[in-house]
């Protein structure tokens, strides 16, 4: 019993302390409790992993039965195995780095304590999600992180755009959660339990159709959470939140939850090839689509947001083609360099006093050398420069994709090239050329540059430092990834370098060229720049109809006129029925007389027709 509950408990404690007393505590105390709780949790994780005997078999710890109703029995229990371990390390590690970074970044923001409280709450839910031993607890974490992302995106609540983005994020996540919930219902119906070890044990025996259905629903959930194609719209808007939030939540941890879930329920996915293909296809499509949009973005955070979506596409591609460990590996490495990219961008924005538009930046290498250097490492890693962490993980995915379906490899490699191009485009636009903005940028304080340096080291060395596939080797009983085709790696590296070269040529050598190309492409460029109008499309097809439809049709129309109309109608009719009968009492005696006689006649005729039988007749 390694009472794993302490890991999430610490951030929860941090949240409670900051949440309740934060207002009155000095900033230092607030940041201290926040950072300390996460760092301690990281330390405890290391302690747990070191003391654990073998993480092959998940050691489930049961604390108390949460919901017990008839056959439905869900306990509040945690487990840890290799996959959880990796995720724990990533979450707590990068989490603590970002906490340190944000003490600097958020130094002179009002509502300082509120930020750290929400951050700690996020850590609690993320850890809960990762450590959970049954689907329901995962779902708790799942929605919890959704809530925290809503709170953090909407941190600057006075700005309507921020609160709109927060709502949008929460609702789109909710649509994802809809998928996960339905998956859980199906799981319980088929497996009579939601615990991982029971479900995965019985999975092989179940009919493929059900498993596919479950897998697809899980995919919907994952797509919602990890911003895959149909439900990715909330991530770019999530940039409204402070940068550390984007780094932590929308790069390193939360968005990876989808991949983690697929990896966790790999047994189900494996047994439903159709689901695997759809995951791959979705991943690939998102990768390509996000990369293309990324090309034309001018806001530095938007560029990195779309690159996250694209890299997540890669991870889903890895999972889809069966290379679960490759996918997870890319997840880990991506966490390192993408966190670095965002934090770098944060410090760039910090340097330019909140300016986010790259066209207003340039030539920052002179003003922020450390950021320039660390951001360089990150760009190299993401572009897949040989021997950097990105190269290893992306290459593993590309090889697996090739083994699965060659055309996938070529599309993936081409997107890799595009990735390299737009990252380096951003790199060159910010650091090369002369400073186009007003004011004078300055280097960020050491509390921000420190984590940058650590992350730079990780993103460079992360590849061979954490060789995830051989750690996770035995977990996913999936066919070996085929021979290490050297030629494929050369091709991918070639594409990467070509991307960097092109970016260098366009943005450093003659910076006027991109504008000319943009104007020549005309319609295509505006289309890409406006993100293929996807947001507007959603707005017109889904949001407006529901809101206006329900206002005019449902509320005014059905509710008011139809149902209420019926109710009011009943009342009104009672009146005019009375009106009709009124005429009978005309006050004219002769009309009464006539009615009497008519009544008598009718009665008589009835008796006649009815026969005097009932009168017994005389005889």
């Amino acid at each position, binding site marked *: 019993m390694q009472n794993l509950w302490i890991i999430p408990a610490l951030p929860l404690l941090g949240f409670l302390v900051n949440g309740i007393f934060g207002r009155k505590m000095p900033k230092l105390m607030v940041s201290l409790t926040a950072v300390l709780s996460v760092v301690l949790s990281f330390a405890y994780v290391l302690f747990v992993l070191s003391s654990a005997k073998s993480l092959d078999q998940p050691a489930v710890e049961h604390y108390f039965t949460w919901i017990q109703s008839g056959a439905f029995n869900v306990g509040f229990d945690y487990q840890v195995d290799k996959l959880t371990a990796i995720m724990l390390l990533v979450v707590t590690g990068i989490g603590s780095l970002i906490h340190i970074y944000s003490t600097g970044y958020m130094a002179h923001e009002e509502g300082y304590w509120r930020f750290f409280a929400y951050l700690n709450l996020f850590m609690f839910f993320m850890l809960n999600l990762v450590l959970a031993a049954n689907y329901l607890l995962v779902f708790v974490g799942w929605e919890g992180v959704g809530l925290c992302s809503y709170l953090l995106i909407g941190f600057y609540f006075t700005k309507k755009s921020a609160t709109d983005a927060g709502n949008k994020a929460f609702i789109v996540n909710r649509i994802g959660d809809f998928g996960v919930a339905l998956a859980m219902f199906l799981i319980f119906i088929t497996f009579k339990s939601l615990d991982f070890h029971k479900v995965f044990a019985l999975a092989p025996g179940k009919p493929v159709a059900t498993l596919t259905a479950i897998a697809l629903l899980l995919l919907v959930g994952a797509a919602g959470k990890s911003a895959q194609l149909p439900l990715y719209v909330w991530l770019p808007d999530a940039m409204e939140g402070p940068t550390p939030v984007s780094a932590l939540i929308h790069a390193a941890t939360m968005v990876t939850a989808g991949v983690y879930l697929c990896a966790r329920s790999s047994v189900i996915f494996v047994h439903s090839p159709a689901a695997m293909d759809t995951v791959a296809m979705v991943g690939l499509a998102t990768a390509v689509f996000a990369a293309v949009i990324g090309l034309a973005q001018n806001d530095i955070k938007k560029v990195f947001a779309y690159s996250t979506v694209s890299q997540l596409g890669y991870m889903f591609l890895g999972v889809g083609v069966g290379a679960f460990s490759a996918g997870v590996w890319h997840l880990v490495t991506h966490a390192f360099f993408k966190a670095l990219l965002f934090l770098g961008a944060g410090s760039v924005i910090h340097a330019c006093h909140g300016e986010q538009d790259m066209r207003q930046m340039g030539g920052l290498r002179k003003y922020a050398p450390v950021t320039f250097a660390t951001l360089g490492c990150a760009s190299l890693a993401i572009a897949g420069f040989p021997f950097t962490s990105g190269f290893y993980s992306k290459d593993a995915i590309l090889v697996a994709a090739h083994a699965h379906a060659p055309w996938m490899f070529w599309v993936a490699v081409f997107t890799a090239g595009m990735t390299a191009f737009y990252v380096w485009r951003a790199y060159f636009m910010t650091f090369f050329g002369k400073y186009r903005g007003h004011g004078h940028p300055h280097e960020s304080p050491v509390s921000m540059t420190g984590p940058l340096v650590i992350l730079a080291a990780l993103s460079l060395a992360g590849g061979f430092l954490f060789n995830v596939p051989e750690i996770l080797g035995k977990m996913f009983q999936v066919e070996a990834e085929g021979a290490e085709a050297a030629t494929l790696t050369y091709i991918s590296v070639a594409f990467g370098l070509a991307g960097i070269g092109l970016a260098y040529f366009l943005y450093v050598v003659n910076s006027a060229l991109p504008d000319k190309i943009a104007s020549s492409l005309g319609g295509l460029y505006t289309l890409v720049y406006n993100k293929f109008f996807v947001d507007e499309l959603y707005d017109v097809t889904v949001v407006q109809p529901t809101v206006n439809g329900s206002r005019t049709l449902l509320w005014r129309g059905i509710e008011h006129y139809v149902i209420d109309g019926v109710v009011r109608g009943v009342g009104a009719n009672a009146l005019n029925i009375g009106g009709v009968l009124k005429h009978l009492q005309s006050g004219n005696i002769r009309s009464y007389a006539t009615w009497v*006689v008519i009544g008598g*006649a009718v009665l008589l005729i009835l008796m006649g027709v009815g026969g005097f039988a009932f009168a017994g007749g005389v005889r």
Partner: protein
Amino acid sequence: MEIFFFLLFAIVALACALNVVLQKHPISSALSLVGVMVSLAVLYLMLGAEFIAMAQVVVYAGAVMVLFIFVIMLLNAGAETRKGGSITAQVLGIPALLAFFAALVFLITTYYPGLSPVKFGDFTGGGAREIGMKLFSSYLLPFEVTSVLILIAIVGAIVLARKELD
């Protein structure tokens, strides 16, 4: 023999009844009503209801009709002006009346075809003795109730008819 009397008095009764309805002046209709009542009294006699016949004459002809005549005389309202009764009433009324009457006749003839003929002496149950016995034995309650009714009627009539003692 009986048929002669029956026809005689039936025709008298019908004539007087029509007269009641058709006459313009209420006095004449009142008197024709007296005629109807007396002829009915005779018919009752033929049906063996002596007490009722005499009662009919005493009560109806003797008292009620006198009341009517009193009122008509006192009010002296004169003949009813023949204000153009709505044509439809006429057009509709008469056939409706005939239809109503035809329905009655039809019902009677179909359901009471074989009724026994009426002979004068057949049924002698109508005497005062039988009625008295019956009245004060099985029909005592209705008798008492009607007596109360009459009391009420009298009081009512007096209250209504007397001049305001202003």
